[in-house]
């Protein structure tokens, strides 16, 4: 029996049939039937897809991501209350990385907050936490000391979200839109006609540690399939390839971007995760702030570090991290070969005393203690354009 049969609620994006037609290997991810990689016969596979994004362009169906819209007179106050970054700094058309926190200062989810209008914000959230996030946002907007004057809408099923990622991503999308993308800075959005569809939201955002755009088009199957094919066609001159969740994971890991359930979760706080720079303690009160103040005074017991394997072996999620003497000190949150860096890397939680760059540790791999060391993060940083 297959996973799909065992779980009748597994969901499909509007591009599901297209992925299958292209021969993608499908897996269940957070309740979604998603492509993990496309076949070698069309020049794909995780490594090829990863390299395309680092050196050219790749496209991803990320329609499983969720979208929550907050609009109304007190939309900013509501966003400020429920998220840790300072949304008052956003100009219209600007976006920021942020997170929704529990009162304990741990993560409901990480989000990208887009300011779309004077009193209009769009939160882009993770697939596995869609319902939890929406309920949490709605409840906290309603049940503040007094409800915020702000409408909360769950738009997740309205959009097919396609990520066009890589140094050539901007050139590819520019062929398909009348919007002048050269004026759109990283973490800003614009609107324009895309593949004949009017008023399409395009954000210069992504989850690959590379330049690129994410576009939000109507979620009907015919439109989604047409745009997907047009993007692939327009990208031929740049060597575009379709990319699955496998490459998405290795790309984000090289860039040290957190994944919910791995580096961040409801038991890990902001300081432990090292996301201090996105948490603005100086802004007005927000959910989780008081606990974070306390946690800061106490100090963290574990901290997220980057590891590079010194000896042969690949650290995987959940593997134990040992000190040089063999005592267990932490665990790997994400580990994989890094296709572009050609090293075996991992993110891991260890005590702050063993977090300094250069610290020698070991990772327990199927009973063997394999040498690794703490290295600077991010593992990969995209080159600045001249």
């Amino acid at each position, binding site marked *: 029996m297959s996973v799909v049969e065992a779980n009748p609620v597994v969901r499909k994006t509007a591009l599901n049939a297209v992925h299958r037609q292209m021969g993608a290997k499908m897996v269940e991810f957070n309740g979604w039937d998603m492509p993990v990689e496309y076949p070698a016969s069309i020049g794909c596979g995780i490594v090829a897809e990863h390299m395309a994004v680092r050196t050219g362009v790749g496209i991803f169906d990320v329609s499983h991501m969720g979208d929550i819209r907050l609009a109304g007179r007190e939309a900013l106050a509501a966003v400020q209350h429920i998220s840790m970054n300072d949304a008052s700094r956003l100009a219209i058309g600007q976006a920021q990385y942020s997170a929704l926190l529990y009162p304990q200062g741990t993560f409901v989810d990480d989000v990208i907050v887009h300011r779309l209008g004077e009193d209009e914000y769009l939160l882009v959230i993770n697939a596995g936490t869609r319902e939890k996030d929406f309920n949490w946002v709605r409840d906290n907007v309603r049940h503040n000391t007094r409800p915020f004057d702000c409408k909360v809408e769950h738009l997740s099923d309205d959009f097919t979200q396609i990520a066009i990622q890589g140094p050539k991503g901007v050139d590819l999308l520019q062929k398909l839109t009348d919007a002048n993308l050269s004026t759109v800075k990283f973490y800003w959005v614009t609107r324009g006609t895309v593949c004949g569809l009017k008023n399409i939201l395009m954000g210069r955002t992504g989850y690959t540690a590379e330049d690129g755009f994410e576009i939000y088009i109507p979620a009907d199957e015919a439109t989604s399939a047409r745009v997907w094919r047009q993007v692939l066609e327009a990208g031929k001159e740049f060597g575009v390839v379709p990319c699955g969740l496998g490459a998405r994971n*290795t790309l984000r890991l090289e860039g040290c971007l957190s994944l919910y359930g791995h580096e961040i979760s409801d038991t890990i706080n902001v300081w432990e995760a090292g996301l201090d720079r996105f948490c603005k303690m100086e802004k007005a009160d927000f959910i989780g702030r008081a606990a974070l103040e306390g946690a800061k005074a106490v100090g963290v017991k574990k901290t997220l570090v980057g590891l590079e394997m010194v000896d*042969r072996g690949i650290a*995987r999620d959940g593997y134990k991290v040992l000190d040089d003497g063999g005592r267990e000190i932490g665990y790997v949150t994400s580990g994989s070969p890094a*296709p572009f860096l050609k090293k075996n890397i991992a993110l891991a939680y260890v005590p702050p005393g063993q977090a300094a760059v250069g610290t020698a540790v070991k990772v327990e791999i*199927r009973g063997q203690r394999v040498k690794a060391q703490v290295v600077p993060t991010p593992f990969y940083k995209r080159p600045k354009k001249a």
Partner: protein
Amino acid sequence: MSYPSDRKYTKEHEWITADGTIGITHHAQDSLGDIVFVELPKVGAEITAGKTFGTVESVKAVSDLYAPVSGTVTATNEALATAPEQVNKDAHGAWMVKINLKNPAELNALLSAADYEKFVSEEAGH
């Protein structure tokens, strides 16, 4: 894909020749995706039919290698340490270990090329 008829196959997707050369099948490498690491036993190690004798790792996942039959390892393909992608390129040529068969009759219990091909197509149909 046609599978060479000069060898036998397992339902765990290994192949073995009559002289005891063992590898993984084309289907196995295709399911795994980009292979980045192969961990093999040392020369002299005893391997036991149906038990794991090594691992093969793709970017995404770790998979065990199961011994098709019992025997003693006489050689390992050291080229795979630096070029594991050979398994993707030519699964039926990129052997992993050679063994001295403990009991050659064990080979009779394994799948023929035609049976393996049928097994794989049935598996894909589910």
